[in-house]
């Protein structure tokens, strides 16, 4: 291989890296340009605070933002203790055979397609919820339960990995002092992996925030402020999927770019926060 060829190839690699990074800006740019009429008219922030009522020509999205926040936060709140418990089982508490089995199951879970969770949710979970709570069944609770199952594996694997990263000498020290397994978990492993737990939480939040199908299939998609667990709600993601069929010159259609921009900005901020917390840890 000649020198010139080497240089050309290096430049090609660089070009691809740059182009791939450019995609991030391209995606944002596209949404910005198509949502521009909103931003120009000063409508963007209006949209964030107005209700959605197409018949009156008002296309605000705050109910969707509330729906997204309710579903994502609740599922993280449900999933967090569940994941912490499972991760503790895998790394510390359970006998090795069960721990290995649980780890395998959790890894397998990450491979289950989202749409399958949604499908089973419709035909298995919703009738149960309907029976128990006498509602329509399509509600925040159903979506939250399925979403909890969907995001838990991510958290469990991340938690148990950061539990396993605790230096062996610390563990040995507890063992030689005669500490029990629970003491080991509470006083050594958990404090040592606080950072990993926080990161796992944020990743799971991002995942819950960006999920489309579970909310679309199970939450009922009614545009309203969610008041209780049994209310129907619509998330930003589901809103995009539902409105996409509209005429693409209309203001109604433009408003989904406001949803897109909101989602994009939120996940970006989340990533930046993760990055910042990693940097703080290093020195």
């Amino acid at each position: 291989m000649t020198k010139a060829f080497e240089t050309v190839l290096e430049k090609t690699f660089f070009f691809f890296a740059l182009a791939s990074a450019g995609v991030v800006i391209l995606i944002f740019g596209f949404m910005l340009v198509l949502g521009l009429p909103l931003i120009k008219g000063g409508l963007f922030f209006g949209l964030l605070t107005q209700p959605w009522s197409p018949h009156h020509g008002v296309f605000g999205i705050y109910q969707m933002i509330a729906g997204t926040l309710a579903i994502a936060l609740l599922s993280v709140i449900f999933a967090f203790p569940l994941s912490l418990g499972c991760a503790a089982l895998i790394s510390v508490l359970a006998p090795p055979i069960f721990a290995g089995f649980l780890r395998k199951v959790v890894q397998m879970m990450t491979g289950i397609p989202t749409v399958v969770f949604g499908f089973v949710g419709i035909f298995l979970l919703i009738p149960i919820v309907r029976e128990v709570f006498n509602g329509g069944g399509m509600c925040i609770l159903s979506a939250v339960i399925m979403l909890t199952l969907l995001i838990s594996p991510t958290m469990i694997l991340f938690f148990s990995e950061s539990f396993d990263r605790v230096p062996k000498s610390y563990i040995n020290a507890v063992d030689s002092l005669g500490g029990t397994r629970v003491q080991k978990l509470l006083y050594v492993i958990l404090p040592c992996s606080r950072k990993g737990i926080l990161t796992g939480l944020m990743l799971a939040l991002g995942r819950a925030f960006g999920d489309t199908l579970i909310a679309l299939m199970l939450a009922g998609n009614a545009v309203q402020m969610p008041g209780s667990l049994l209310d129907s709600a619509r998330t930003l993601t589901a809103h995009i999927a539902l409105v996409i069929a509209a005429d693409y010159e209309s203001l109604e259609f433009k408003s989904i770019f406001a949803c897109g921009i909101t989602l994009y900005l939120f996940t970006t901020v989340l990533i930046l926060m993760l990055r910042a917390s990693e940097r703080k840890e290093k020195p």
Partner: protein
Amino acid sequence: MNRVIEYLIIAGSWLCGIVLVGSIFCIIGYLFFKGAAAVNLSLIFGRTNPIDAILLKKQVFNGIFPAIAGTFSLVVLSVALAVPAGLASGIYLAEYAQNSTKKVLSLFFDILAGIPSIVIGLFGFSLAVFLHKNYSDRIYPCLLISGISLAFLVLPYIIRTTQVSLESLPMQTRLTAVALGATKLQNIFYVLLPQSLSGIVSGVILAVGRCAEDTAVIMLTGVVASAGVPKSLFSHYEALPFYIFYISSQYADTQELLSGYGASIILLFLCAFLFLIAFAIQKRLCYQMLYRV
């Protein structure tokens, strides 16, 4: 420490484990209980002869073969688009980039990985609208647009697995060929890439799984409920995950619903299978993909 609290914590953890395992077995068991009977050749091919269908001699009308064919072409297309770009970027990041460049670029890739798939779908849709308005009236949301969008979706995973598997090679492997007089590029192609192949391949397989299961992106970029086997890059197409989604809300009779269960089982098996292969090939590196961030 209080004994009671200790027991409570142990009991609580076991409860978590049992709830998780129990509910996942409920989900899979329910699917099989309801749908196992539906999984047979006629679910896929309807009343058409399977060989004729695969050779595209006859159209399949009441089977999910078109959906499987659509998903297959979608996966091939998007992986073919994403792998070269992902490999090149990964190699650049691992082998060439200066520290500061690397930091900036990987921040971008982290952001790309974090963008919700529906937003990427929205981008794909706007791309189609843009091309339709400015270049050609013939471009609508179609197979090609979906392929490009899905390629963007899995690009960061491929970049990251390539980078990580290259970077985790031991110094000895890294230096031997160079010490013998190999150039940097020769070293990469003849030593480093072959050595890290297992990691890269497992990343690609998981990317295939991600393309096969994603519904949000294709929903906005051209998938339809009935289109037959895709004829060209610019045509509508069917896909397995969308078929499942569609059936769940629009099924007309129990027969159709049953085929929805069947399709779910097939998709589940497909993803589990890909996942197991990828995992068998490379245990460690899969973590990036497992977290799906």
